[in-house]
């Protein structure tokens, strides 16, 4: 079913060799929080650091030229990975959160010289969804607060998908921005981006896509997605922490005011005034995350070598297996859609009468690392009347046996707590 050899992939991840406190092997089902790094990603960073490390775009010496080539090469590679028409559309940020903040701040910072469609002002509306990660919600709340715009949201159905019934009244001529997740980090739901981008474009609104969870799991092509901005994090797709990507249409980036200001993003600086460089430099203030960009490009290479179609198939099969196993257990309620093509990567569930923290503790005692809580999607959990969920997420190194161990261990946890019932 999986076209790559998962055992060979596992050998590339040094951390999978470790055992835990009780001697158990590590079953890492928390890739949705942060993924592990294969050796080639670590090696790429170390090779750079021990050979060509230097400040980029500044020096006239050989090391600086090598470093600049490596850094700009990483940008070009990420552009390719995402199907970006131009490498200059790739802006490196510290994480997806900063990428989303960049867009939200810049849309609020324009002046008379900024095109109208790139400005959010009083009376405008911003549309998000009830399933958003805090990273794609709070920056928009703050933008609304600063500008006097109104924040609205697409609600969720009982089936764990977006409720588009009232889309016509939510997405109107007043809407400047539609910001939403490509894939929910809790539900696993993949949203109907094509339809929504088209609807947004029809009313002249920009679409901002949070692709944090989809980027590691499926082929992405920004041209096909059709959005105006796409944000993702390196550490969720086998790359380093401390690096994220904002992709944006060049014509937008070229007309937007900067976010962070300082060195390397300027054109001319006087004491009392400054003009700014073209994108992407305009949005990369200060010394960038150089070795991290190189590590991220190596992660993209690693995923591409496996093939994103194969990666998607692998993740889909594991998700199905986990869902089929878990839903048989008494008192377990899956928080997410039934198995199907538009749901992958994450399996979250609630247990009747048991707090997720307690479930997670039992799993941990058996070497199974999952995440518990609201997963930075508090409104989503409130919508379904639960304080939190237990969430298992999969990666390219996850095996069917590990999924079975998860199901077994949840069953064990039910028994464990059952004895006190």
């Amino acid at each position, binding site marked *: 079913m999986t076209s790559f050899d998962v055992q060979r992939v596992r050998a590339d991840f040094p951390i999978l060799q470790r055992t835990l*406190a*009780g001697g*158990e092997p590590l079953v890492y089902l928390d890739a949705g929080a942060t993924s592990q790094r294969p050796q080639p990603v670590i090696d790429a960073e170390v090779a750079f650091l021990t050979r060509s490390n230097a400040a980029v775009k500044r020096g006239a010496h050989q090391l600086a030229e090598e470093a600049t080539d490596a850094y700009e090469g990483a940008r070009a590679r990420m552009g390719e990975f995402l199907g970006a028409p131009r490498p200059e559309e790739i802006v490196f940020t510290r994480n997806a959160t900063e990428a989303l903040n960049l867009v939200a701040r810049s849309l609020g910072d324009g002046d008379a010289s900024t095109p109208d469609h790139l400005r959010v002002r009083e009376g405008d509306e911003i549309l998000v969804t009830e399933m958003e990660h805090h990273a794609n919600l709070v920056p928009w709340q703050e933008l609304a607060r600063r500008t006097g715009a109104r924040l609205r949201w697409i609600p969720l159905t009982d089936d764990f998908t977006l409720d588009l019934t009232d889309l016509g009244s939510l997405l109107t001529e007043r809407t400047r921005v539609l910001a939403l997740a490509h894939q929910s980090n809790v539900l696993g739901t993949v949203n109907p981006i094509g339809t929504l981008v088209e609807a947004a474009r029809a009313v002249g609104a920009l679409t901002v896509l949070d692709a944090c969870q989809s980027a590691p799991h499926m082929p992405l092509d920004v041209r096909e997605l059709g959005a105006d901005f796409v944000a993702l994090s390196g550490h969720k797709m086998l790359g380093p922490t401390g690096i994220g990507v904002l992709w944006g249409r060049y014509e937008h980036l070229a007309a937007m005011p900067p976010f962070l200001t300082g060195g390397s993003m300027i054109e001319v600086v006087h004491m009392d005034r400054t003009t700014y460089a073209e994108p992407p430099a305009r949005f990369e203030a200060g010394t960038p995350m150089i070795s991290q960009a190189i590590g991220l490009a190596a992660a993209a290479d690693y995923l591409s070598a496996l093939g994103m179609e194969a990666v998607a198939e692998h993740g889909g099969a594991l998700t199905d297996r986990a869902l089929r196993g878990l839903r048989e257990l008494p008192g377990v309620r899956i928080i997410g859609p039934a198995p199907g093509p538009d749901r992958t990567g994450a399996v979250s569930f609630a247990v009747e009468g048991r*707090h*997720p*923290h*307690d479930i997670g*503790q*039992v799993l941990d*005692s*058996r070497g199974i690392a999952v995440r*518990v*809580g*609201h997963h930075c999607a*508090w409104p989503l*959990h409130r919508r379904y009347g639960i*304080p*939190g969920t237990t969430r298992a997420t999969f990666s390219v190194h996850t095996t069917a046996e590990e999924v079975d161990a998860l199901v077994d261990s949840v069953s064990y946890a039910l028994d*464990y*707590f059952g004895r*006190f019932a």
Partner: protein
Amino acid sequence: MSSGLDVLYTDIIFEHDKRPQNAGLREPFHAEVHHVNPTCGDEITLRLRRQPGGAVEDISYEALGCAMSRASASMMSELLIGRSLAEAEEITVAFEAAMSSRGRDAGDPEVLGDAVALLGAAKFPGRVKCVLMAWKAYRAALVEADALDGSAG
């Protein structure tokens, strides 16, 4: 394999989790506080009533959370109600110290009573916050009550 688990989840923890002492919000009270644990969404609303002389007359609460955090609220209320503020302070300090010791300080059952059972969580840094939430809420309520009646704590 689950040895670590049994340090955490003892019978007494589950007794308090199932039958929490002093639960439910009661009147009258001098201060009410609402605390959350932002990482897991656990919540507690806690009310404090003090006697004129300064003793803890009542602690009532509503707690939403894991077994550890609910048991902790229950045990704390049992332990502190009826104590003088000085005694309550001594217990709270001793408990917080043991809880932050990563297991090095096993706690004195004379002082902490049932609550020593909570100290199993001291070895699980991710759970320390669950256990301490109720105690922090008590502290905050104390500060608020002081502020309200103008007497320095």
